[in-house]
């Protein structure tokens, strides 16, 4: 194996020397064989599709896998990739036809079974997959993944059935018209037999069906991906490959970019934002991503849940000077939020600028009046809890507190409460130990308005950290999910969002952008709505 790799490189080197042509296929301008280097972080969990829930692992999966659907890097719209068609008559029973001609990079054909096996693996409690809940809509999930700690009574989802080589049916446990659009998420990727037959070997060197294949992988240090020459899809890589290098600190990645040691850094540190444009001479991108930051409230705490508190919450929201904070601290890499979704959804997708109305405007006088009307802050004070280990949260929490203190004209009204690590922060949230508002960030899993509302505000939903519960909201979401007409479904979701607004379930702060800087060698650098660079479109040279 190793010998073969060496031989190929030798041939490439000779060919390059003789004819000055590059190895590897592809078309278009630039050097299609050239490899670029990009910054990366060590994935937190093993690199399996249903086990990866953060951006760093997601980057790799996005390069080596293609699912039934793929979200357009620019519009975020779910478009068929491996799916020839996904049909349903009742939003509950779906028939999926897989396109012919797709293979994994090891030659194995991608069939209906590749999907069904992968989904069964992801859903099964036995396999400890962090993203198992994504299969929760499929019938039979409760048997393969009993949430209450009971025994697992089935190995496979009863709602999945292979009809023939290219067709399988999906039965959901409830109506969900948006289901096909969720299928672009990495957890729904197909898996080759190699994954099940020799799992350890697969983890050492993952094999997928995307435009790149893994050439070598040194855990915690570097992953070399090369363009797959026989890739059957329409989005072939326009470069020879990508070397992902693990950086502990985004500052070092940025320094390396300036020194010409790195081609692409996709997380520009906050401290460099003020000089990034001059440093990189315009080779810098700052585009909206599907991330919103909010302040959630502990509704399990009587003090925050009594009648009248919605006025206090609204007052707090109006006390925050979002404009100033996003300008001075984030230098335009955040945009003040005016609803609870994200601009990447687009108007048709459910984003509605200004839905929040005056409640998201900076009106200190009104804020003071509302807080007083609502009975004042519990105990006269409010603490904002956040994790201090990542993401320069301290700066903005302090700024938000300053805003509130100024508006309420009380030096000691608001204080920040840092928690050392993210794990500890999450622990306190799940153990319901929050005594005041706390940081809540949400990065969408798929670009649907449903994903910004249901997981966060539906009764007992997985990310409803504040345990907010509202019958009207739940009913509207249920109706929207049943609705087969997309436009009508979006309108219902927006009505549900208005309920969130009227009760001020969480204070929207700002939409987060993705940022990237690159070297002179690169062109056509874009970020998709998940703030991940669209590697396959990047041209080198």
């Amino acid at each position: 194996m190793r010998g073969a790799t060496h031989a190929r490189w030798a041939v490439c080197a000779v060919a390059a020397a003789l004819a000055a042509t590059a190895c590897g296929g592809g078309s278009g301008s630039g050097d299609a064989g050239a490899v670029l280097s990009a910054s990366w972080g060590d994935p937190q969990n093993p690199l399996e599709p249903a086990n990866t829930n953060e951006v760093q692992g997601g980057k790799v999966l996005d390069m080596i896998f293609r699912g039934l659907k793929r979200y357009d890097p620019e519009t975020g719209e779910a478009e068929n990739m491996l799916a020839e068609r996904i049909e349903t008559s009742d939003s509950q029973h779906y028939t999926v036809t897989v396109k012919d001609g797709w293979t994994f990079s090891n030659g194995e054909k991608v069939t209906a079974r590749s999907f069904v096996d992968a989904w069964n693996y992801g859903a099964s409690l036995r396999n400890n997959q962090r993203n198992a809940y994504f299969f929760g809509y499929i019938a039979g999930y409760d048997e393969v993944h009993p949430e209450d700690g009971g025994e697992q009574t089935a190995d496979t989802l009863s709602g999945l059935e292979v009809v023939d080589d290219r067709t399988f049916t999906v039965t959901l446990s409830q109506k969900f018209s948006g289901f096909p659009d969720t299928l672009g998420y990495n957890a729904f990727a197909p898996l080759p037999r190699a994954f099940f037959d020799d799992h350890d070997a697969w983890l050492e060197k993952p094999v997928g069906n995307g435009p790149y294949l893994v050439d070598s992988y040194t855990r915690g240090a570097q992953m070399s991906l090369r363009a797959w020459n026989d890739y059957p899809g329409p989005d072939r890589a326009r470069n020879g490959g990508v070397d992902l290098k693990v950086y502990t600190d985004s500052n070092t990645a940025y320094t390396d970019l300036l020194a010409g040691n790195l081609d692409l850094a996709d997380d520009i540190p906050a401290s460099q934002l003020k000089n990034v444009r001059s440093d990189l001479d315009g080779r810098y991108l700052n585009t909206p991503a599907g991330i919103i930051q909010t302040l959630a409230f502990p509704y399990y705490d009587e003090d925050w849940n009594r009648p009248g508190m919605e006025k206090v919450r609204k007052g707090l929201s109006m006390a925050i000077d979002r404009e100033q904070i996003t300008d001075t601290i984030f230098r335009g890499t955040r945009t003040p939020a005016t609803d609870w979704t994200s601009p990447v959804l687009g108007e048709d997708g459910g984003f509605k600028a200004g839905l929040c109305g005056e409640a998201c405007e900076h009106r200190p006088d009104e804020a003071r009046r509302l807080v007083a009307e609502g009975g004042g802050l519990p105990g006269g004070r409010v603490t904002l809890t956040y994790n201090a280990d990542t993401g320069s949260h301290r700066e903005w929490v302090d700024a938000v507190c300053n805003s509130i203190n100024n508006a309420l004209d009380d030096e000691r009204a608001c204080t920040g409460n840092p928690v050392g690590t993210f794990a500890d922060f999450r622990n306190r949230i799940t153990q319901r130990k929050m005594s005041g508002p706390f940081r809540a960030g949400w990065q969408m899993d798929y670009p649907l308005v449903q994903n910004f509302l249901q997981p966060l505000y539906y009764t007992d939903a997985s990310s409803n950290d504040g345990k907010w519960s509202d019958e009207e909201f739940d009913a509207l979401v249920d109706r929207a999910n049943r609705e087969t007409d997309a436009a009508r479904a979006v309108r219902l979701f927006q009505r549900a969002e208005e309920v969130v607004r009227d009760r001020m379930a969480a204070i929207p702060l700002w939409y987060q952008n993705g940022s990237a800087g690159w070297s002179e060698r690169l062109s056509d650098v874009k970020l998709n709505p998940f703030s991940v660079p669209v590697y396959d479109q990047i041209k080198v040279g």
Partner: protein
Amino acid sequence: MGRYVVRRLVQMVPVFVGATLLIFLMVNVMGDPIAGLCGERRCDPATAARLRAEFGLDRPVWQQYLTYMGNVFTGDFGTAFNGQEVTELMATAFPVTLRLTLIAILFEIVVGVTLGVVTGLRRGRPVDTGVLLLTLVVISVPTFVTGLLLQLLLGVKWGWIRPSVSTEAPFAELILPGLVLASVSLAYVTRLTRTSIAENRRSDYVRTAIAKGLPRHRVVTRHLLRNSLIPVVTFIGADVGFLMGGAIVTERIFNIHGVGYQLYQGILRQNTQTVVGFVTVLVLVFLVANLVVDLLYAVLDPRIRYV
């Protein structure tokens, strides 16, 4: 001598157990690490319970500790959250940090001791004052400032070096990080040697050696330096362990994937297995380095004997 070493080795056992227990408890006090594995959402209880069982977190702490220590003696340091064996992490991290430490120690010995001897022999002269001022500056400026500044100047502005160290981390790329890591200790070594030399220069045996007509370099190296090195050796010995574990800042600045990086990530993810495993090895390094220092005393000063 032999009995002394054995006694010291036996003494290491309670120190070792105590230190690992403390670290184990400290990491445990930070709380349940599983909650951090599922992003901004609640892990579903069933998966969380299974993960807890997989990492042995569902049992009481004392039982976890005993199982862990039992495994450590068979060479099994457990598994990190990303599925990698901790021994595998150690095998990649320790060689890198060892090289970095070696370079740092070399800097301390070669540059530090030399500067110390030179300034000690020329007390009050411009050389002495200059070096003293320099060490003062180095000691007072935090490592991350020196590191970032040198990285920016040498790496970006002048382009002499790569600002970050590659995965293989060969010696050549570690010279600057090694210097940065050593800088503060280097200054201390210089000052220690200087004081010691200056003190001993006026002692009787040096006067005798000079009176015997020995050449100057022999007086300095064989008589003066050898007798002045004891405090310096103590300092450098303790520094070995400190440099290996304390390289977190330097390793972060230069993106070195060594012990500091693994510890930092282990602490952030509250991964008991990684943190305790690495600290255990560091504790061992500390203990052995201290023993070696004590034995070196006897070599430097024949009056010191171990029985």
